[in-house]
């Protein structure tokens, strides 16, 4: 029985460790996962890792969880992805639950309020700053700049559901790249 369980326990603990140290969101843990899964345990090679990462990032859900599920599945099938998934979720689940249990008691403390008064604008800055880099790497041009602006304004001012935005942009992507661009290519004029 022990021999059968071993690969699952290994997956669980490898991702438990990763889950415990993924401060600051998914992108911070990429080097950690790479170190653990590629270099230390040799579960997959670096090329596969990069390809897997591209897929994990483009699918919905947290990147850390997607990566754990993917590697778990590759190693041990569905049960392997459960073991890795539980591993990566559990540390933050425990920590956040403890915070939820006790945070209400500190919330109205005057010192805590002063700390948060300083932190609140910083939180907004940390969300806003990556936008510049992201706009560049996504290849946003003056011609396509209207899309993020229209999205941001409609969600911010008109309370449009982000789900509607996502569904529309998937439909828009398919309509544009599958039909308009492809037709243009078939007619042989212009590249876009």
């Amino acid at each position, binding site marked *: 029985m022990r021999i059968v369980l071993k690969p699952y326990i290994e997956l669980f603990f490898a991702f438990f460790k990763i889950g415990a140290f993924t401060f600051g969101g998914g992108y911070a843990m990429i080097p950690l996962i790479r170190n653990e899964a590629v270099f230390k345990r040799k579960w997959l090679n670096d090329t596969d890792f990069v390809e897997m990462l591209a897929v994990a990032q483009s699918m919905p859900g947290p990147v850390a969880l997607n990566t754990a599920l993917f590697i778990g599945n590759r190693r041990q099938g569905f049960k392997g992805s459960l073991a890795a998934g539980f591993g990566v979720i559990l540390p933050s689940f425990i920590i956040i639950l403890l915070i939820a249990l006790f945070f209400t008691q500190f919330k109205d403390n005057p010192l805590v309020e002063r700390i948060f008064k300083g932190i*609140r*604008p910083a939180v907004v800055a940390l969300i806003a700053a990556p*936008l510049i880099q992201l706009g560049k790497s996504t290849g946003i041009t003056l011609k396509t700049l209207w*899309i993020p602006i229209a999205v941001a304004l409609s969600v911010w001012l008109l309370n449009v559901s982000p789900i509607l935005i*996502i569904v529309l942009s998937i439909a828009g*992507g398919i309509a544009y790249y599958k039909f308009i661009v492809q037709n243009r290519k078939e007619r042989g004029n212009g590249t876009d």
Partner: protein
Amino acid sequence: MGLIELYASMFFAFLKIGLFGFGGGYAMLPLIQHEVVYRYGWIALEEFTDLVAIFQTTPGAIALNSATYIGYSAVTTAGYGTLEGILGSVICTAGVSIPPLIIMTLVCTFFFKIKHNSWIQAALKGLKPAIIGLIASAALILMNQRNFPDYTSWGIFLVIFIASLKKVDPILLILIAGVAGVLLY
């Protein structure tokens, strides 16, 4: 609302967040906020900012952390006890994790087909500019009177914004902002 109904609506809200949560943590913020603040009112927008601050300094993905925290907090705020609250955490965390579990299982089965499928690639290309807009909306929603009550807060914003562009560690920046808050207020 009865406890079972509350559990059910929390589960489905987070299932939706898991299913439509493209583009990573910050892009998921408006989605989470739309469901838990705007649609259901489980927490106030003010509290949401403070939670994002906490989630940025604790390990784990923002969507999962939101599920764990709100699962507990919505249930206990509704007047139920700690145990019911913990079960709420479990339910929300499961809700947000189930879509990725199903999707990644499918991805593993059809990996190469997905990678080279021109329909999926077209859909993903369509999503990219929208994801930037969603992140921008998260910043704009949080740029409110309560988070920016005075010039000091705009000063903190500018300093942290520039430091973040210079790739200073975000956790360090939050700690600095917290100290600045104590010193300046």
